[in-house]
């Protein structure tokens, strides 16, 4: 498992998932093979129905594959879930309206049985990490959408999971807020050295953030291309105007088009 | 039938079967004391033999020591709890086997109650809709009347029923009208509140659209507010008709009325005719269920036609 100091965190081999619906079976994932190493930032991109979210949910043990093998930290996804191996950020912030921001971040900590002092300490740390100092006492509905989503990231960072799974976390936000959060997310990734799985349908977002881009296509949901990004780890926003960036983006677009042409 | 509906069907059936089984089981301890007294009079040997001793013993103990009497607990003349089949037989005999004009026909009594319910419901609903339209169009009425309509929902206004019957009787009005009055005011307030909510349900964008057409107030009412209010109206109609039925039944209690489901309930409770009470109760339940069901059917048809629902 260990080669040259890198550790495999997520490994999928010939992964298959078929949903039985009233309109017949849907092949959500077909023969998916993928290895994610520790500290990588992996984006999953593709049109809707390509299985990118489904794959992330399989890693989180929110869906059960119908074929192939999938390991997370060398365990089955369900074991990993019970070991609280990952934090999950959904498309919507999904903060509980009856809890303050601080209490929302404490939610997983309460469930996992952290001491009260430890909870307070961690809340302070992650609020600072996502730039929300001073908002702990507010209720979610008193905050903007971008701030709510940052709070939900803080919630996923509060406990010691070395994997962060994010399912289109910025999909509902406007472009300016999104740029800002992307920048912050990269800074956060650099500081915490977590392994991040990130689902998106935005090509610039995927290229800007990732060390590895997984291009997927639908019917059946499958991987059509895996691109290792040549971009440096240090990425200011204007890197998006560089030649390398445009080349990677081009290759992603080609991959998406190829998947589309198959039909 | 789809798999899910099939499963739900069996689940409901199972729950109903459990309820009936529980009901039969409950008859045994509920009726055992009465049965033992009867059996003793008929010459059977019961344990313990004295009625006075039995009074202080638990029903379950008596059942164990007198298990021979169990079948009789489902077949008493005036049981504390009649068995399901006794109620069913009574209902059959008083509906199918009696002429509907007979005073002993349950259909006759149900009709007496139903006619008062329907008359009152029609009046209450009609007035309720009119008032709701007034409230939506007049700021003064909204401010003055609406709070009272809302407060009325928290008050047991049914307590007025006996007085209405007697007062109307003293001015010479009796029969269907007093009961209909009670039914009317019980359905009136839910309809007002629901209809106001419905007429106000169109959002600002929809209202603005009509303004861009320079639509008149009347056009706005007929083309937007009224259709938008229908789902709300039907919801409150279903509440209203159930309330109307309760009103008609309660309206039959105080005067010693001789006809109607409420009168059957009261007479049954005076003379200890439990089987009669239970069958009147089931008749009332069937009536309520079919009225609400019928409204649901009309609702689906109307809303479908208007394209509000699928």
């Amino acid at each position, binding site marked *: 498992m260990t080669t040259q100091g890198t550790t495999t965190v997520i490994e999928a081999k010939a992964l298959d998932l078929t949903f039985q619906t009233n309109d017949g079976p849907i092949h959500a994932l077909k023969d998916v093979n993928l290895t994610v190493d520790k500290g990588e930032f992996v984006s999953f991109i593709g049109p809707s129905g390509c299985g990118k979210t489904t794959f992330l949910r399989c890693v*989180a043990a929110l869906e059960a594959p119908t074929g192939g093998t999938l390991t997370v930290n060398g365990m089955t996804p369900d074991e990993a*879930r*019970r*070991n*609280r191996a990952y934090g*999950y950020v*959904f498309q*919507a912030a*999904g903060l509980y309206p*009856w809890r303050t921001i601080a209490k929302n971040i404490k*939610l*997983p900590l*309460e*469930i996992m049985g952290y001491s009260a002092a430890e909870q307070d300490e961690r809340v302070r740390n992650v609020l600072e990490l996502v730039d929300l100092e001073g908002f702990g006492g507010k*209720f979610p*509905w008193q905050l903007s959408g971008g701030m709510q989503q940052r709070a939900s990231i803080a919630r996923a960072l509060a406990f010691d999971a070395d994997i962060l799974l994010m399912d289109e976390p910025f999909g509902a936000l406007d472009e300016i807020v999104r740029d800002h959060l992307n920048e912050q997310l990269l800074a956060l990734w650099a500081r915490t050295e977590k392994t991040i799985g990130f689902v998106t349908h935005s090509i610039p977002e995927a290229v800007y953030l990732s060390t590895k881009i997984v291009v997927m296509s639908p019917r059946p949901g499958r991987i059509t291309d895996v691109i290792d990004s040549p971009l440096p780890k240090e990425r200011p926003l204007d890197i998006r105007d560089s030649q390398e960036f445009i080349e990677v983006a081009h290759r992603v677009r080609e991959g998406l088009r190829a998947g589309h042409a198959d039909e | 039938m789809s798999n899910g509906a099939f*499963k*739900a069907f069996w689940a*409901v059936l*199972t729950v*109903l079967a459990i*309820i009936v089984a529980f009901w039969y089981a409950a008859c045994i301890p509920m009726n055992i004391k009465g049965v033992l007294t009867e059996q003793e009079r008929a010459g059977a040997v019961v344990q313990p033999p004295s009625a006075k001793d039995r009074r202080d013993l638990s029903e379950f103990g008596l059942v164990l020591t007198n298990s021979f009497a169990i079948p009789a607990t489902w077949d008493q003349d005036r049981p*504390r709890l009649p068995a399901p089949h006794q109620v069913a037989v009574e209902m059959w005999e008083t509906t199918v086997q009696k002429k509907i004009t007979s005073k002993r026909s349950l259909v006759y009594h149900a009709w007496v109650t139903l006619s008062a319910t329907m008359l009152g419901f029609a009046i209450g609903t009609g007035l309720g809709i009119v008032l709701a339209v007034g409230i939506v169009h007049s700021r*003064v009425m*909204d*401010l*003055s009347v609406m*709070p*009272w309509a809302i407060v009325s*929902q*928290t*008050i*047991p206004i*049914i*307590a007025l029923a*006996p*007085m209405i019957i007697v*007062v109307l009787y*003293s*001015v010479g009005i009796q029969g269907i009208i007093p009961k209909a009055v009670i039914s009317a005011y019980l359905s009136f307030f839910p309809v007002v509140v629901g209809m106001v909510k419905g007429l106000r349900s169109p959002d600002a964008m929809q209202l603005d659209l009509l303004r861009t057409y320079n639509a008149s107030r009347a056009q706005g009412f007929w083309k937007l507010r009224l259709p938008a209010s229908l789902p709300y109206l039907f919801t409150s109609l*279903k509440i209203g008709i*159930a309330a109307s039925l*309760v009103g008609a*039944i*309660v309206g039959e*209690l*105080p005067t010693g009325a001789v006809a109607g*489901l409420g009168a059957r*309930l*009261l007479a*049954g*409770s005076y003379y200890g005719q*439990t089987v009669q*009470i239970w069958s*009147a109760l089931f008749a*009332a*339940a069937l009536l*309520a*269920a079919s009225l*609400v069901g019928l409204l649901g059917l009309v609702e689906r048809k109307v809303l479908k036609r208007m394209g509000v629902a699928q």
Partner: protein
Amino acid sequence: MILVLFAFLLWLLGWWVNGRLASGPYADTRMVRFLAPLIFGLTIIGIWELVVRGLEVSLVILPAPSLIAVRFADSLSVLWADFVQTIIKGAFSGYIIGCGAAFLTAIAVDRWEFLRLGLLPVGNFVAALPIVGTAPILVMWFGFDWHSKAAVVVVMVFFPMLVNTVAGLREATAMQRDLMETYAASYWQSFLKLRLPAAMPFIFNGLKISTTLALIGAIVAEFFGSPTLGMGFRISTSVGQLSLDMVWAEIVVAALAGTAFYGLVAMVEKAVTFWHPSQRG
């Protein structure tokens, strides 16, 4: 006849004042929202008084408000005893038992799919029935005192409360449930931290509906037999004696008790579900 004319003038005055208030610059203030219905109510009472006196309406048809007020003041101890018997002992204990039992049943129904499929349609069906009709049976079983009234209340509030609570417990979204799943939260953790708080608006809806039902049940059940005490008893015997002022006094008590009970539950609701859009205003 002159009094009837006064009544008409009073009506015009009330209408004019409220009209001014409604079209005035303060129409949307709290003050006006409170004053307008109050003026309307007082106008109605004033007209009632004037018309009854002016037309010399018989006491056995409609007593004047002033007579009702006098009767109310004179019978405080009787009204209080009736209130305790019917509202506190009958309605209130039945309300607590019925709502509590429904809540526990709802948890079981929510936990086991089979119960939800089987019991919920039955509960929905029963919730629409004229359950108050069970009063004669329950009076026969539990005797004339308040126990039978509490039993009627239990049966009346149980199903609306059950249906509302079950609906509430299913209110948490799939995403919120998934979040709990990612924390590997236990059933009870996810129940206490997610589903119960999310259900609160529905639970309070059930509790509010049940306050009125509880009062109706407790009062109507007394029409089928009671000790010589209680609001329903007083209403039915006073109607029989044609002392309608006493009936009206009891109705005033019922109205006050109903609004106070409902208001109390609504206040607790506001404190508990402050986060819900309907409460944020």
